[in-house]
């Protein structure tokens, strides 16, 4: 391990933050943090959920003001009045929670703030779309329609657009806050390609991720954050040391061993499930099984999950829960059949951001918690408290609004809610998205623990590594169909990616 904390002979850093402090009410997010990134380098920022990464990025990006400390851009001290001030200095940010305007088109979003104008000084709408098409094609994106409303495109597509917005501005400083969390392998590869191209032209790229292999691949230097402070900057760092630095203790970073083979009765049988983007999907999910689902984004996984939860239109020859045929018309019906879904986009599809952690956790079990129509508050608090501890949710207390938590902690709350609901079938859709290494490990343990208890778990992840290590079997989807079924032992990430891509070789 070569730890180099000194910058020494480096030229003026492109961006530098020193002794930055930021508190939200009683919560100290940054506590005298230092950070600096040079031109032409990819500088990774790593740390546990809630370590203060996003807060630092927001301060540099002009969205937050530091309580103390200073930010220098190209050596000059700056006080940013807003994101547009940062833009003027060449600093562009892809924020962790996406900031696209859902009721506008992809093209409008791409050019928001720097629109193309006609001779009258009005925004030229005709040119807008062709120009957007051009911009997207320039960076190699062809599958997103610039005329589509952002509302109607997938989360991964939104993330790509957000990235394109920033990288087409020729940024001096590009801040990417967990840009890969909803991207699949291929899109990540694309992103790294773009990052390298920009770096070659002297852009300083700040990058955060909870996936160590990404950090290893792209980062020139790594700064570790813990509890709002930087604890070291390195040019080379192993995952285990990194986790130790992040958490302050040693944590097992490997995948836990698979539990014993599942039982022989199916918890959920699906026959000929079809819908707008899925074609004749049939499978059995056994009790005690973790059944993985993988493949490229946009090939129908999401629709399978949401159909089974009654949130998407679908038809099916037969759906059985523990051998009994059921019809799932809406999410309420699904919950009644003891099916739970943890969705990908916590902001729009699961959490009530203004409500407290406790309320969000106990939302689905209020009926069980109630007596004579009144919620037993003590019991509710006890349950919520247990979960917060079990999932290591970092919140000041149970009453703080979920919206004030860091991204990863929000994800944990969402997962915790469905754990409380004690369902027979859990549909886990990319639940480790944006979750730090240590917590990821806990989630794996939790998932396998649930399987051991006899729950059937359908598990989608954009991380093929995860699928390979956590699942008994993996269904690979392609164009709305199940293209391959892989079984343990011996599933590898490469196998999954290859199965997802196979068709491309033949076309």
């Amino acid at each position, binding site marked *: 391990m070569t730890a180099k904390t000194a910058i020494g002979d480096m030229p003026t850093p492109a961006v530098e933050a020193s002794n930055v402090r930021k508190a939200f009410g009683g919560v100290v997010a940054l506590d005298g943090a230092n950070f600096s990134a040079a031109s032409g380098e990819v500088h990774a920022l790593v740390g546990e959920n809630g370590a203060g990464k996003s807060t630092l990025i927001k301060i540099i*990006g002009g*969205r937050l003001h530091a309580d103390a400390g200073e930010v220098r851009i190209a050596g000059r001290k700056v006080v940013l009045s*807003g*994101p*547009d001030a940062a*833009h003027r200095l060449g600093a562009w*940010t892809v*924020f962790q929670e*996406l*900031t*696209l*305007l*859902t*009721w*506008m*088109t992809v093209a*409008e979003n791409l050019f*928001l*703030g720097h*629109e193309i104008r006609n001779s*009258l*000084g*009005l*925004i*030229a*709408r005709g040119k807008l*779309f062709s120009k957007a098409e051009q911009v997207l094609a320039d960076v*190699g*994106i*062809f*599958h997103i*329609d610039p*005329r*589509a*409303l952002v509302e*109607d495109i997938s989360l991964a597509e939104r993330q790509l657009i957000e990235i394109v917005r920033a990288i087409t501005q020729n940024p001096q400083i590009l801040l990417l806050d967990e840009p890969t969390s909803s991207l699949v392998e*291929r899109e990540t*590869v*694309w992103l790294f*390609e773009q990052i390298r191209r920009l770096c070659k032209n002297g852009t300083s790229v700040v990058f955060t991720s909870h996936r160590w292999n990404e950090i290893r691949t792209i980062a020139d230097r790594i700064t570790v954050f813990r509890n709002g402070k930087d604890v070291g900057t390195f040019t080379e760092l192993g995952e285990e040391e990194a986790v130790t630095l992040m958490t302050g203790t040693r944590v097992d970073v490997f995948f836990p061993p698979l539990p014993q083979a599942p039982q022989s009765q199916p918890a959920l049988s699906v026959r000929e499930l079809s819908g707008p983007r899925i074609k004749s999907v049939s499978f059995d999910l056994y009790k005690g099984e973790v059944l993985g689902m993988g493949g*490229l984004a*946009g*090939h129908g996984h999401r629709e399978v999950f949401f159909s089974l939860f009654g949130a998407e*239109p679908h038809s099916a020859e037969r759906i059985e829960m523990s051998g009994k045929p059921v019809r799932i018309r809406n999410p309420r019906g699904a919950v009644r059949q003891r099916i739970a879904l943890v969705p990908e986009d916590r902001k729009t599809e699961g959490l009530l951001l203004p409500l407290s952690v406790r309320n969000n956790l106990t939302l689905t079990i209020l009926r069980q918690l109630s007596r004579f129509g009144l919620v037993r508050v003590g019991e509710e608090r006890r349950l919520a408290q247990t979960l917060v501890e079990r999932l290591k949710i970092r919140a000041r207390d149970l009453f703080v609004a979920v919206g004030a938590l860091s991204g990863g902690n929000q994800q944990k709350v969402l997962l915790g809610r469905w754990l409380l609901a004690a369902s027979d079938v859990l549909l886990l859709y990319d639940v480790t998205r944006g979750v730090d290494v240590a917590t990821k490990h806990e989630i794996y343990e939790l998932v396998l623990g649930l399987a051991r208890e006899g729950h059937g778990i359908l598990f989608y992840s954009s991380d093929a590594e995860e699928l390979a290590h956590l699942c008994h079997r993996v269904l690979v989807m392609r*164009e709305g169909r199940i293209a391959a079924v892989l079984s343990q032992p011996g599933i590898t990430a490469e196998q999954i990616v290859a199965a997802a891509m196979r*068709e*491309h070789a033949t*076309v």
Partner: protein
Amino acid sequence: MPQYKAMEHTALAQPFRRSAAAHALGQNIGLILVCILLIASILAYCGIYYAAQERLPGGFEITSTVNNTMPLVLAALAQTVVVLTRGLDLSVGGMMDLSNAIAAVTLSASLGSMVFWSVAILALGALLGLLNGVLVAIGRLQPILVTLATLSIFQGLAIRVLPQPGGAVPEAYTAALVSTKAPYALLYVIAFGVLWSAFRRTRLGVSILAVGNDAQAARAHGIDLIRTRIAAYTLSGMLAAAAGLFLAANATAGDATTGNGYTLSSIVAVVLGGVSLFGGRGSAIGAMLGAFVSSMIVNILFFSHIDPLYQAFYEGLFLVLAVVLAEAVGRLVRKAS
């Protein structure tokens, strides 16, 4: 660059693209629906009118309907600008009262006076709208609270200016705004439509929609929330003042209380026009058409000779039906495409 190639392949996996027209349909469904609603209500009106009168509505009917709707058209515009930012302007009615009252007191038959006072009243409207905007944007107060308070203030001022209904609006002024000879006032509607289309393509226009769509996201894009909100309320105040001028011109005299009802009816028109009360979505053109739909509903109920005691009931029923239907159809179209 091998990755590039791969990306291209991923793209090819989904070659399906909807046409520009299909997108336009899906994205302007609110506007299209209010057009259909308006056409349907005009047809229904003509049918019922014919049944009752054995002739079709003529120049007088069209002109008086248009003239009567003009204040609401302006009020709906005023409301739209604010609703798009995810706000609500309850002071529209009060502003109309005030503008109406001042117009009745000040306007005299000379061209100079008419022009000067019209401009002055519009400027005052903008100023008071600015007050709303400052309280909402900088004071960070709830729009409903702020505008409810200023509604009372404006109404109070209006009564101060014109304690008793009266005053007079010169005939030339009436002729210029709401000529009784022919539905010339429609020209204003067209002009506002064109202006809106242009406004929608200005930085401010886009900002207003963006702020209403998602204020935090808009901020991340460098849009100044405070300035945008203030501008929206200012514009709203000015348009409401213009609505008051049309009201005065139509009545030919002033009454400091007649604007009150417009707060509510402007919201109705906006909703009928497909503008989302949650902000960020909709068109002022839709809101103007929505105003005409409300007028047509009154006409239809009149000629169908329902017991007047139940008119309000049917009017409400009609509105709810229209909104529910529009919402349902809109959702269907979006789902289908």
